[in-house]
């Protein structure tokens, strides 16, 4: 916004002619007070809605993203909104300048326009203002990033092993074990409102552990233990998928995350300690030996808890 005005105002001064002594104008050009007034009006018209939007926080549009179901997915979502707003302001302004230049300065005659080339105050403006914006974005990034990569105390640990082309979820200190290939979409069960520590590994190539509702992904690397903490705040079943190309059946390397209440979760864990559940686990194991189906079933149901 600032650059529009300064550009307009400053380039209207006569440029310094090549090879001549030039007197600098001592007074601002005549129109400048009018212009300043007009500018103030424009500024008021622009600033008010933006401020209103900013104050009414929760009514901000989601800009294509969703808040997700974990604590960090929500802060990522707010960061997304912040970035989107600054991108729309900067991008919209730039786009307006491009469109204005294109429509306003189309060739009307064979006139040769003034051959002006430099305008240092303007150039410094559009160097320094973006630097300030960038540092603002960086600060916001740091806040969210530190929250996301923090390792708070956790009560539940899940070992996730990615392999070509499926997932294995095991729970240290329990017999619970879930695994499955491709569209079997094995289900990782976790309790709600609990810090979950995830140990992510790969047994072969690099895979990507990605749950859209978590607004988060992390590579499963062979030979490297990747650890992170999530805390889901809504119950429901959420779709996950490998995002890093891992070979032939990469497209179908699906899984699900089921967020249960702590009671349901405990009951589910306990079910693995009695014999009938153990046999159920065995049958799940034999299922993985079935031929991999290339038929795509419907997207696994994703029920979103209340938000």
């Amino acid at each position, binding site marked *: 916004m600032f650059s529009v005005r300064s*550009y307009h105002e400053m380039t209207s001064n006569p440029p*310094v*002619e*090549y*090879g001549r002594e030039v007197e600098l104008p001592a007074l601002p050009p005549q129109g400048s007070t009018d212009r300043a007034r007009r500018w103030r009006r424009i500024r008021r018209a622009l600033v008010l809605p933006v401020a209103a939007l900013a104050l009414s926080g929760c009514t901000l549009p989601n800009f294509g*993203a*969703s808040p997700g179901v974990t604590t960090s*997915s929500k802060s*990522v979502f707010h960061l*997304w909104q912040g*970035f989107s707003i600054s*991108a729309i302001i*900067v*991008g919209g302004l*730039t786009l307006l300048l*491009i469109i204005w*230049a*294109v429509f306003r*300065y189309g*060739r*009307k005659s064979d*006139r*040769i*326009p*003034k*051959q*002006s*080339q430099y*305008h240092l105050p303007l*150039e410094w403006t559009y160097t320094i203002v*973006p630097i300030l914006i*960038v540092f603002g*974005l960086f600060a*916001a*990034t*740091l806040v969210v*990033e530190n929250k*996301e*990569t923090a390792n708070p105390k956790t009560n539940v640990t899940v070992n996730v092993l990615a392999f070509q082309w499926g997932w294995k979820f095991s729970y240290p200190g329990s017999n619970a074990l879930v695994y499955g290939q491709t569209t079997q979409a094995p289900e990782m069960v976790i309790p709600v409102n609990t810090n979950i520590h995830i140990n992510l590994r790969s047994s*072969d*190539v*690099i895979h*990507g552990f*990605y749950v*859209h509702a978590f607004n988060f*992904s*992390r*590579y499963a*690397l*062979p*030979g490297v233990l990747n650890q992170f903490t999530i805390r889901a705040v809504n119950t429901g079943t959420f779709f996950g998928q*490998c*995002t890093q*190309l891992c*070979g*032939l059946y990469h*497209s179908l390397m699906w899984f699900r995350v089921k967020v249960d209440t702590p009671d349901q979760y405990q009951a589910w864990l306990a079910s693995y300690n009695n014999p009938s559940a153990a046999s159920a686990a065995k049958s799940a194991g034999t299922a993985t030996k079935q031929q991999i189906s290339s*038929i*795509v*079933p419907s997207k696994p149901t994703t029920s979103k808890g209340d938000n």
Partner: protein
Amino acid sequence: MTDVLPRPVEHVEHGHEELHEEHQGRTGILNWLTSTDHKVIGMSYTVTSVIMLIIGGAFAEIIRAQLSTPNGSLVSLAQYNELFTMHGSVMIYLFAGPFAFGALANIIVPLQIGAPDMAFPRLNALSYWLYLFGSLTLLSGFFTAGGAASFGWVAYAPLSNSLNTPGSGADLWIGGLLLTGFSAIFTGVNLCATIFYLRAPGMTMFRMPIFTWNMLVTAILILLAFPVLTAGLIMLYCDRHFGTHIFSVAGGGVPVLWQHIFWFWGHPEVYILALPFFGMVTEIIAVFSRKPVFGYKGMIFATLGIAALSLGVWAHHMYTTGVVLLPFFAIMSLLIAVPTGIKMFNWIGTMWRGEIWFSTAMLMAVGFLITFLIGGLTGIFLASPPLDFFTHDTYFVVAHFHSIVMALVMGAFGGLYYWGPKITGYMLNETIGKIQFWFLFIGTQVFTIPGYILGLDGMPRRVALYPHDPQWQTLNQISTLGAILIGISTIAFVVNIAMSWKKHPAGDNPWDAHTLEWFTTSPPPHHNYYRLPQIRSERPTWDYNHPEHKTAAHGHHEEHHDQEVPVS
């Protein structure tokens, strides 16, 4: 104002015609095979790389056709992996780079600085032949039993080892890239030497056109980045065949090392691809706005800034590995927005208060600005690690870099429409050109914008099948429609070449352009110039044609006496 000699009536003096003939001893195919003339080599590069664009585009059309239904059965999963691998490889390694520094830079840089040829003409020929045979090697993977390489254009270890990707297609991919990599390195050496040592009298560094400046910086980046890729490819080949364990866990190697090596080349490569097109667009916008490049020196410093920063941002492709220092790479990546923004505002400043002539080249340049703005802004999101965790390896990323590369494609076509008359001596048809532009511009937006939405909704990249979801299917079909529009635009270009073949002679300077190459004939004679104008700014041809409209000065001025400098 100081004087300029009157403009001579004829540009080519007849006395020089014999000289011209002397150099054209061989004709036809033998001339082409043995030529070391930068214009002939550049023309070979142009034709080859545009053919590569068409091949890569055909792969893209198949990919988009497959994705128009969730359960597409046009190609198998294996073929799909080969197709997107080769699409990316062809476009990045065989089109964008070679087109920029092999084709246009090869032809235009010596002309813009008043040099008779590249510094090392034979090395230049070697570059082309390495490129041609490297390309054929890479593509020949399709004719092997196991099919072409299928590990993505980034070839992440350990997917790219001999266990996970057996077969000679992958080896041919590595071999092809080694050849084209050396071709790029040699071209980089050649461009540096040419720009540093063969500038005409008066052509100081700060009188070089922005395109030449950008090519110099690109050449330096090539020299810094490509040897790393070459080394990495040799390591990968050793891992595959000679039992080394550089990237395999089993033998104590580190798979992520490949990503470091690859992206240490790969991110500068992004700017190696982009800077030449920035240069082309800068020239086009200035010429068709009839104004000098706004903030000429700022533009150069911005280019240098981008190049410097580009060497310290490679790990922003690796945020989700969990093994890189996030804040450092985040701030470095975000900072690249600053010099890029300076360029954007300089381009707008160049158009500001100009008299813009909307030729096809200029339309392409404006299309570049808008498309690059979209791609650039979404790139800022990806520079922030938390937002990258959220969108990494989804269609958001695919849409982001396709906005960028499609902007570069517009820049490339802009360059062809702008310099085509200089290179061939004939104009391209403007009407078909404008049709091509609108198909390309609208097609690009229709193709990329659904990708952003799909990515935010969680669709991963490099998938041949996706869950049944009506919204995903609709968005994918819109995207496919965009790809078809882009395909039509490419056909329009081919039709244009066929229809305007040797029809309308261009004359020396059809655009009333600024830089030195428009001072000589179209096409230029064997060693480019019989005589040169005084070079007292970065726009010698403009100064010569419009002595009363020189750049409005800022700061000091110098006494000079314009006169022609004969070259022997």
